[in-house]
């Protein structure tokens, strides 16, 4: 049963990728997109005739395809990170954006981008590590502030996240305004955007997101037990503190990798796991697997809208996720967390 699903999911994702690649300020016929893609796959090359123009090939391969793939990676990564934060903090409102982890990552990445990478001290590949340091600092601070009598409190956690996030975002803005003077870039970074991203960004983020997803699946069984509460998890053989530490580190790393290439895209990690929990249940292996591909498609669709709705101009995809996500967050708060039964 599971394998049939996986097959349909792969076909669905591929179909959306092809359509999204065809759409844009210059529309490219689906046949050309398929042909250009096939011509790059060794076994399929003989089947296609090159009838398209070079400019179309450049647009597909150099501009759109890497951005489309990056949307998949970032969307999937943010969703997995959301599952991890919600699971380890046992709080359905926790997501890297809301609890300030993304802002921390963004500050770290901005520092790397402005001070270290231009000087050639390190390459672009180190960017996620800068973001990771920032993300861990934010995670550590927020989970400390969110504690009451040694236990994480849902409300304090969210409030601490909002406060820390506000400070960090202000610091990012300050840093960027002082260093680059280009408010357009600052604004794109703060809103979260995939504009102008290419293969090198894809290469930077993908390894971390893939590794994080594998680690997340590896920890899924323990996360299931952890849902029962700390005492029950302990009595079922889980080292609660160690699990919490590991999950926060992996969640921060994945979020950091995403933020370092896309800026702060909000609410994806909140909405996707939440919607899926209602459909596939809370079992973490299922939840992580489905969050990955649904999150990937969600961000791809959102980003495709962001760059086609107002052609020839485009706007940051973070605007779309925030317009959808803000009301969703309010709805969740009003409805009660629904997480504690």
């Amino acid at each position, binding site marked *: 049963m599971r394998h049939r699903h996986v097959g349909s999911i792969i076909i669905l994702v591929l179909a959306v990728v092809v359509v999204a690649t065809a759409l844009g300020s210059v529309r490219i016929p689906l046949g050309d997109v398929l042909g250009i893609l096939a011509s790059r796959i060794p076994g399929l090359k003989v089947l296609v005739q090159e009838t398209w123009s070079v400019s179309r090939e450049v647009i597909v391969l150099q501009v759109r395809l890497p951005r489309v793939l990056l949307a998949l990676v970032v969307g999937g990564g943010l969703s997995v990170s959301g599952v991890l934060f919600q699971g380890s903090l*046992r709080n359905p409102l926790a997501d890297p954006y809301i609890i300030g982890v993304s802002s921390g990552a963004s500050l770290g990445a901005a520092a790397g981008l402005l001070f270290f990478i231009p000087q050639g001290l390190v390459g672009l590949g180190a960017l996620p590590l800068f973001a990771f340091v920032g993300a861990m600092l934010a995670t550590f601070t927020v989970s400390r502030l969110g504690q009451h009598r040694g236990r994480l409190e849902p409300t304090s956690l969210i409030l601490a996240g909002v406060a820390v996030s506000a400070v960090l975002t202000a610091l990012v803005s300050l840093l960027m305004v002082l260093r680059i003077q280009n408010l357009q870039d600052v604004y794109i970074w703060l809103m979260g955007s995939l504009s102008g991203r290419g293969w090198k960004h894809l290469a930077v983020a993908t390894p971390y997101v893939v590794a994080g997803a594998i680690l997340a699946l590896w920890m899924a069984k323990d996360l299931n037990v952890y849902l029962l*509460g700390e005492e029950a998890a*302990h009595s079922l*053989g*889980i080292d609660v503190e160690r699990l919490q530490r590991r999950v926060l580190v992996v969640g921060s790393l994945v979020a950091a990798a995403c933020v370092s290439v896309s800026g702060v895209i909000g609410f994806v990690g909140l909405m996707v796991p939440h919607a899926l929990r209602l459909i596939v*249940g809370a079992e973490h292996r299922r939840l992580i697997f489905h969050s990955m591909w649904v999150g990937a498609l969600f961000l791809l669709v959102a980003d495709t809208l962001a760059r086609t709705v107002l052609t020839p101009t485009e706007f940051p995809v973070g605007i779309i996720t925030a317009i959808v996500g803000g009301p969703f967050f309010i709805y969740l708060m009003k409805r009660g967390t629904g*997480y504690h*039964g």
Partner: protein
Amino acid sequence: MGDKIRLEGVTYSYDQNPVLENLSMHLQPSLFYGVVGPNGAGKSTLLKLLDSFLRPQKGEIFLNGRPLSSFSVQDLAKEIAMVPQHSHYFPFTVEEMVLLGRTPFYTRLGKPSDNDLAIAQEAMRVTDIEHLAHRVVSDLSGGERQRVTLARAFAQRTGVLLLDEPTTHLDLEHQINTCRLLKAKSEEGVTCIAVLHDLNLVANFCDHVFVLDRGRLVKQGTPGDVFTPKLIEDVFHVAVPKLSHPLTGRPVITP
């Protein structure tokens, strides 16, 4: 017979305030123990110490003669099962939830074996939730959920069962059924230790009672020996007449 569990001079404090002081106890296999006492007596803390969720600041707890602190969390989960006072419920099916009781026995990436499934099935049968196996736990009533938690603990197949107020949210029938189940478990050789507020349930079902008051063990013994009007008045500040059940002869506690 050797002690299943032994406490020697166990002291636990929270923020300098002692919650349990110099507690020594011996617990045997095949007995159903009741722990009673007013609010704040340290009953839940005692269970958390027995489960090694908390570590005593002074003294030592032994399981099968071996210090509790020398067990890994996972090994301990094969010896002691816990039904906590508060459980969280999620969109898991009843069967998935009960199978979580088997987690200490299979590896991280492994699947539950046929044996694990059979044990979970048996645990659902004795707790009378077999017909709910494919229902989602968060949709069940309080009493049904409590039986799911009980089944999960049974599925661990441990020699020790700890229960923190397992009957609190149950109606009369399910309160009595739960106590009967625990009684039956203890007759199979399990050491059952339950914190209970209903003294009449304790009087009816438990083999041995520990009375805690302000962190100290003030009395222990069979319900008949322990539940005297004087003790009830001293510990619970309620005056009761001396009554006994006309059929069983066990004490009845009512004002």
